């Protein structure tokens, strides 16, 4: 009785199948191909570029910091007593390096009493405001100071938040990679457009009757545009 017949009689059909002399070599080659292809697939899937597995599976802790650049747009106007003027400032990114966005806009209105009287001529009264237009900014942000005034020749400082939640302070966050870590800070369009600033002057006259009075005032408006670029540094 042959080996195959014995196996068949024993009821071990798996053994009969694999003991076939005519095809044993071919099945051996197939088994080898099977193992090689499986090993190659395993290598590609589990071992090759495995350092990237943690990158895509786990989030890392990133410290975000901001590099700031500023650019200043200035206008000087001579306003008569009771005079008012709307000034338009065209803001764009042309004066910033690549990759910068506009974070906020500070407006500084400065003037001084120009009348050279013997006794002090009192400072004129100046009111300034950033006019709400369709300029893309956070008009309802709590940190905004959209109007102000002075009658003591002090500068008037106005602030308009442009990029949502931008404060310029470092913070930490979890993210898969550096691009995702800074993804909150790469939106385009914020702060690009025409900013309108309104300035009014009320001239204060000297209390000394013989003194010459002036009836106008020179006001300087500086629009300080704060641009930023977010940087992400992976924390260990």
């Amino acid at each position, binding site marked *: 009785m042959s080996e*195959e*017949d014995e196996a*068949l009689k024993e*009821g071990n*059909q*798996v053994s*009969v*199948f*694999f003991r*076939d002399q*005519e*095809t044993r070599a*071919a*099945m051996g080659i*197939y*088994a080898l*191909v*099977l*193992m*090689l*292809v*499986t*090993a*190659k*697939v*395993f290598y*590609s*899937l*589990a071992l*090759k*570029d495995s350092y*990237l*597995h943690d*990158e*895509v*599976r*786990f989030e890392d802790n990133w410290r975000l910091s901001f590099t700031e650049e500023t650019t200043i747009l200035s206008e000087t106007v001579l306003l008569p007593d009771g005079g008012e003027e709307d000034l338009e400032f065209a803001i764009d990114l042309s004066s910033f390096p690549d990759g910068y966005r506009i974070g906020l806009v500070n407006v500084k209105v400065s003037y001084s009493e120009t009348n050279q009287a013997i006794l002090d001529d009192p400072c004129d009264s100046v009111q300034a405001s950033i006019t709400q237009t369709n300029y893309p900014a956070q008009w309802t942000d709590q940190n905004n100071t959209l109007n102000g005034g002075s009658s003591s020749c002090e500068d008037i400082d106005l602030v308009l938040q442009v990029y949502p939640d931008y404060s310029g302070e470092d913070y930490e966050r979890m993210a898969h*990679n550096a*691009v*995702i870590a800074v*993804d909150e800070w790469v939106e385009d369009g914020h702060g690009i457009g025409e900013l309108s600033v309104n300035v009014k002057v009320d001239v204060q006259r000297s209390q000394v009757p013989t003194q010459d009075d002036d009836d106008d005032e020179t006001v300087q408006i500086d629009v300080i545009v704060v641009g930023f670029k977010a940087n992400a540094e992976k924390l260990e």
Partner: protein
Amino acid sequence: MAADFQSLRAISGMVNTILGIITLLLAYRTKNNSWSELLAAKLLGCFLLFHGILMTTAYIAGFFTVGSFSHSFFGSLVNIAHTISIGMACSSCLFFPYPFVQRKHAEQAIAVVVLTWSFIVTGLIIFIPYEAHVVRYGFWFFPTVVWGFVYVRFSVKELVHKHEHARGLSAASGLLILATMAWLFSDWLLWITVMEKFTIPSWVSGIPPDKNPMLFFVRQSLIMGVSVAALLTMFVLEGWRVARHGFSVLSGIVFGFFFIGIISFIVDLSVVDVLEDCIYATCQELPESWTIYNTFTNILTAFLIQPIVLMYLMLNFNLLDVKTEKNGRYAKAMVLVLVVIVSSTIVEMLQSIIPIGELLTSAFLAIGIAAAIGWEHQIMDQFLKNKNKTVDYLKSIGEIKSVEPASDTTPTLSFSLIVLFAFALLLSVLHGAIGLG
């Protein structure tokens, strides 16, 4: 195309369910076939039925599930149906085309194995879902390996040792591999070259951070390794066979997938940049053209081509007796319904990407239906062209034992089928009501 993908799932659910029901009906009406072929037909019928339930439920779940899918009625039903269908596929490879198990109580043993498998795996999925899902799906490797060896052995018998009738076994096992794993074939070249470019951003990134990825890597390597090895081996041996005996249905499909794999490789390389963005930057959506290509290759294969191949196999390899008048009617209904469903689906899919009027596609559809009815005899003849009797050949080489299957003892496959249905429904209701796990 995302909507089409979901519709395809529903159509596939319908196709699989219809096929499964008719296969089981025909199998229980078949009297004259060998016991192993009949048992395989029942197992494959159950596989199709539960696969259909899985697909249909997954589609319906999209409309009704609120909250966690895995803790819903539909989520649970999808899981159980999937577990049972894998159990059925793994069991069927032990009986067809080569009957590895030739025992009197084979049907009872397999009924117990399928029941035990379903209970244990379903239970494990409730408590250790990730591990159980990964291991369960890994069992697809088993039938692919078994059918791969059967294919190689009997192809060599035919081509080298001139056993003409050995072709029945090699063709059947090749078609079974296609009917279960063909969805992996359309990207075979990518899998064995630079698969990491695709898998790291899509598969690896999806592994939960608290789970061990090695289990997934081993499972996926096994499934993809045996599938790609099977396709390449079939390509070589079918190429050899075509040179000697001309084309066959199997060689046509194998060559088709081989060349689709080369085209897919080029197509996939075109989206590598988009995928790399998921690693080094933020994920972007894949191009619409790639999604359409993927729908027409991988998804169409998984949802429609695979059940059609299985139907062809069952009719062509004598798993079902369709010679009697009543059985023949069922078989004709099955073939016509499926041919019409599949052709109309493909016409509708083409319409969604090619700007042609609905009236025109309706006309094409009408032509297709008329052709299916008009050529009903020819279509059926094509399906029944070669009545391969694998058992007769195995008898001739002395590898079939004379076994009289025990029919008077329980549990039978029918009994386990009823238990599985009741179990699936009961557990799903419990899951939906109290959220097990």
